[in-house]
């Protein structure tokens, strides 16, 4: 199974593959020479009644061949694996780079869990393709051919047998394979479904206990497992046929070679040494086919994994300009003109013809029901998404003409659920400004009302955070994120206020820190707090992706529109 997209990648390891091919050629030659000497020794001792001393030299030569063969085997394994490692790590870096460009919004739709498993286990499965399948596929094209040519020149009849039966093996395997492959594949996925079923039961065990159904489910596990076993065995019956054919072809052909040599020997048509030599080579002729057959599943898996990797590389990325222009220097307003956007596969607009201005140095609040398009607008400004139509400008510059990284340098973003990474508090804060001194960090923490959060941690600024580290509550995380925003000191602040569920202390402190951070910055905040909304200079009210209303609180409250409706609901 030569899979083109995977073969294309071998450009990077052409040298290693060439070495692997040379080793293949060398080891086959060594095998041939070894068998010449081995048959010679047996011939001399058996037919010529030669004493041991006469074959002494030959035995030493044979030993040399054996050592050389072992050395070549060892080297080829190591070299093949190295090639696989190189391809794998390059692919991994490339895929990660691609995902970085893709941005968080698109990735969210692609299911991070699946992507990480593609990046880790998926790529490890490709390993088997390059480390084992491909070298063996190459070997199958070299070794049998060389052996067949040698046999053909010295004993055309045996050579003809090898040449006729050799191609039969791939042919039969292909026939059976194409017959069984679909069903086998389906069955492998059924097997993983069975595992998924069991995991589902384990995860639901508490629920089962809540309803007193735990004992009954054991019977289901038995019943379903047995059903899967029976259908799987039904498929394996066919899938194993390819192994049967391979084995049968190899052993029967060896037997045919042996018998016809035997018959010709009796008739004196062939010398013993030559006959023995051909017999010794026959299994070596079929061995590469058998080795390749054993890796069939690795090839299938590698191919499936490769499909996932290449699909991930196809995830579209936001527009990157060919010639980026310089980012505008503040002061500038951010203006949206007729901005529309639909998510892939959706009919309805997430944003529809939105025209608005986020004025320099002012606080603009974004309000609306969930699903009204607040986050979409937020993400457009982060350049995670591009508008489908319409244009967003920073001053006079179209955002699309700016390099994403350059634009993002102008932004400080505080997400609703800020991410913390493996590392100390200090390292997490320094992500915003790598050269910050400890005083800078302390100042920022104080401004963000995060100082007491850090002081409460067991090792203060040295406390490890992240998945395996210390856990912080939502409010505490957001205060650290605010500290990062102070450190970054960017002219534009984008903030997504926590919707609910903060303790009163965090609530109060985040409010104060946000007000401090807003000073002298252009601010767009997805607002949930009435206090934030009342104090905003300008309010954008989104409804079903459209800008329903905009203005200051006092002005909007007077109208009996969407904004007033939102406030009424809150007051209930």
């Amino acid at each position, binding site marked *: 199974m030569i899979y083109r997209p995977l073969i294309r990648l071998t450009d990077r390891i052409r040298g290693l593959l060439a070495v692997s091919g040379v080793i293949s050629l060398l080891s086959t030659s060594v095998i041939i020479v070894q068998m010449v000497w081995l048959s010679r*020794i047996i011939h001399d*001792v*058996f037919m010529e009644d030669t*004493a*041991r001393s006469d074959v002494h030299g030959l*035995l030493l030569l*044979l030993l040399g061949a054996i050592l050389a*063969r*072992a050395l070549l*085997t060892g080297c080829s*394994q190591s070299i093949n694996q190295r090639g696989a490692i190189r391809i794998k*790590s390059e692919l991994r870096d490339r895929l*990660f*780079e691609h995902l*970085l460009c893709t*941005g*968080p919004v698109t990735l969210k739709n692609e299911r*991070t869990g699946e992507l*990480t498993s593609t990046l*880790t286990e998926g790529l*490890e499965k490709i390993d088997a393709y390059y480390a084992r399948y491909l070298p063996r596929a190459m070997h199958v094209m070299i070794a049998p051919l060389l052996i067949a040519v040698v046999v053909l020149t010295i004993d055309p009849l045996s050579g003809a047998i090898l040449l006729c039966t050799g191609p039969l093996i791939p042919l039969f395997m292909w026939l059976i394979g194409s017959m069984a492959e679909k069903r086998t594949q389906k069955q492998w996925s059924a097997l993983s479904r069975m595992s998924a*079923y069991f995991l*589902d*039961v*384990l995860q*639901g*065990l508490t*629920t089962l*206990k*809540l309803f007193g159904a*735990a004992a009954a489910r*054991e019977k289901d596990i038995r019943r379903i*497992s047995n059903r899967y076993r029976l259908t799987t*065995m039904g498929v*394996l019956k066919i899938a194993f046929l390819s192994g049967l*054919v391979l084995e*049968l072809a190899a*052993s029967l052909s*060896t*037997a045919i070679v*042996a018998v016809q040599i*035997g018959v010709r*020997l*009796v008739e*004196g048509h062939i010398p013993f040494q030559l006959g*023995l030599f051909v*017999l010794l080579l026959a299994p070596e002729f079929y061995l590469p086919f058998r080795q390749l057959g054993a890796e069939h599943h690795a090839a299938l898996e590698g191919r499936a994994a490769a499909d996932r990797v290449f699909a991930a590389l196809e995830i579209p990325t936001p527009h990157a300009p060919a010639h980026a222009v310089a980012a505008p220097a503040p002061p500038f307003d951010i203006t949206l003109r007729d901005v529309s956007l639909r998510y892939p596969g959706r009919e309805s607009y997430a944003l529809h013809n939105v025209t608005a201005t986020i004025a320099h140095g002012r606080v603009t609040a974004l309000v609306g029901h969930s699903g009204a398009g607040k986050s979409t607008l937020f993400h457009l400004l982060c350049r995670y998404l591009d508008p489908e139509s319409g244009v967003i400008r920073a001053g006079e510059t179209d955002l699309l003409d700016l390099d*994403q*990284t350059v634009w993002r340098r102008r*932004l400080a973003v505080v997400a609703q659920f800020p*991410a913390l990474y*493996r590392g100390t508090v200090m390292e997490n804060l320094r992500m915003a400004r790598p050269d910050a001194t400890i005083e800078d960090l302390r100042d920022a923490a104080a401004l963000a009302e995060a100082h007491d959060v850090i002081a409460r941690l067991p090792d203060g600024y040295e406390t490890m955070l992240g998945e*395996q580290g210390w*856990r912080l509550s939502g409010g505490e995380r957001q205060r650290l994120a605010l500290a*990062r925003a102070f450190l970054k000191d960017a002219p534009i602040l984008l903030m997504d206020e926590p919707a609910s569920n*903060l303790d*009163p202390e965090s609530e109060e402190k985040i409010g104060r820190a946000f007000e401090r951070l807003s000073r002298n910055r252009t601010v767009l905040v997805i607002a*949930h*707090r009435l206090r934030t909304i009342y104090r905003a200079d300008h309010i954008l009210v989104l409804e079903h992706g459209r800008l329903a209303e905009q203005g200051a609180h006092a002005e909007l409250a007077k109208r009996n529109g969407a904004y007033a409706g*939102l406030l009424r609901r809150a007051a209930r």
Partner: protein
Amino acid sequence: MMGSLYRFLKTHRAQVAASLAAAVCTILAGIGLMSSSGYLISWAALRPPILDLMLVIVAVRFFALSRAAVRYLERMVSHDLTFKWLLALRVELYRVLTPLMPGLLLRHRSGDVLGRMADDLDALQQLYLRVVAPVITAAIVSIITVAALHVFSPLLAWTTFVFLAINGILLPWHAARSARGIGHDQVVARADLQALLVEQLQGLGDLLTLGSEDRARRDVHAHNAQLGRLQARQATITGVQDGLTQLCAQLGMWTVLVLAIPMVAAGALDGIYLALLALGVLTSFEAVQHLGPAYQFHERTRTAATRIEALHNEPHPVPDPADPTTPAAHDMHFKGVALAYDAGDAVTDIHFSLPAGRRIAVVGPSGAGKSTLAHLLLRFRDPDKGEITFDGRPLSEYTQEEVLRHAAVVPQHTHVFNDTIRANLLLAAPHADERALWSALERAQLATFVGQLPEGLDTFIGEQGARLSGGERQRLAVARVFLKDAPLLVLDEPTAHLDEDTEGRVLDALLAHGANRSVLWITHRLLRLDRVHTILVMDRGRIVERGPHDKLIAADGHYARLLQLQNQVLSL
């Protein structure tokens, strides 16, 4: 683990015997094919009448045909056994886990404990196929080979034995020793890489806006390279192992030849057997060839086995009482209860009463320990300090099963099974009729949704309810509660994922359902709280305030502040 495997194999004696016999015959047929072929042409070289050769020719053909057939048989039987073994493993794990849940999960703060267990089983299922069967087969074939060689010469027999032993025992042991640590390091490196990727992809937004792409790239590249280095080292070891394995087999053949030649010269051995011996000895190494991988695989499954075995020794979080009873009434009292545990929020000094038919709400910020009260009440965990009584007796005098029989629960994280909506509902009431199901759906505000599905109640809802939204899953859990007629109703944030209108209606239905039942209702949203008898306000593990809604408002304390805070937030 070996204990359970032994018991399993004993109960499937006949099938095990068949699979081992077939495996042994496969290798013996290979040895037979090559040695009889060698013998055939040696004899033929002496040019006897062709009829004399007939028997050997038949033997050659027999071995050739039978090898493929027994091989096929062996694969079928051993795979069938493997599936049965997996079922046995699953049932055993299920039985062990049942009494441990959910206490076990409550002890682990992070990580997919259950997923890892399922993976462990997937590894352990291969224990027979890849470890036990190859080892036994190798032993039997070796014995037969050595016994057969004994007929020709004890010296040759024991020489071969030594090489077989080196190949089958010493080399795998050496490989395992030199690879010790690397296997483990690889697992760690992979897990590290995976954790890093999960963290970075999930926190991609902050990573991009903080401008830390370079740091992320460097981290991924470094982890990637580290994994590559470990794999390259592993490949070198495997390469050396492959080379040595091959060398050992060939060297065995060579040594037998060196020893046999003087015997032939001295007339102690007929030269006609020389080819037979060389080929037979060489092919016999097929028996021990797979022991290296078997050894490695065994090493790898060891961790999995240890983890699963540890579960057997896991103390039951809530041991069953020696003399279990049944409650007549359903009054519950918490007296000075305290509990601190890994995965939940600790509580201390909890006093309260839940008399039969009363409704209590527990409110407070997240992390206050609200859910812990529910866990204690349901006897998911026993308190560290203090006492909980149920109908006047300590809760620990009832089995967990008994306690749960009296409770209907909407858990915070509900599990819906990858099955139909109907099956998920019937879990709560196996004999409920169509009308009861629809009525429950109606009250859970889910009837319209299910009614619109083309397959209605028989719609499959996907893995972990993937085809349902969070709110729909939650309402399914609520519908289950309506179907289970129990005197205690425990609601842990039953409406957290619902929009405001639906939330109100579902709460009304739940409170109506709880009219004549005891209700413990945990919520962070302060809604409909005038409908309960008592509100417990929790903060940092303690009850800081208690009383009915009106009284708490009048007291102008913690509750009043929480309420005020909530009214400052647009809940959208």
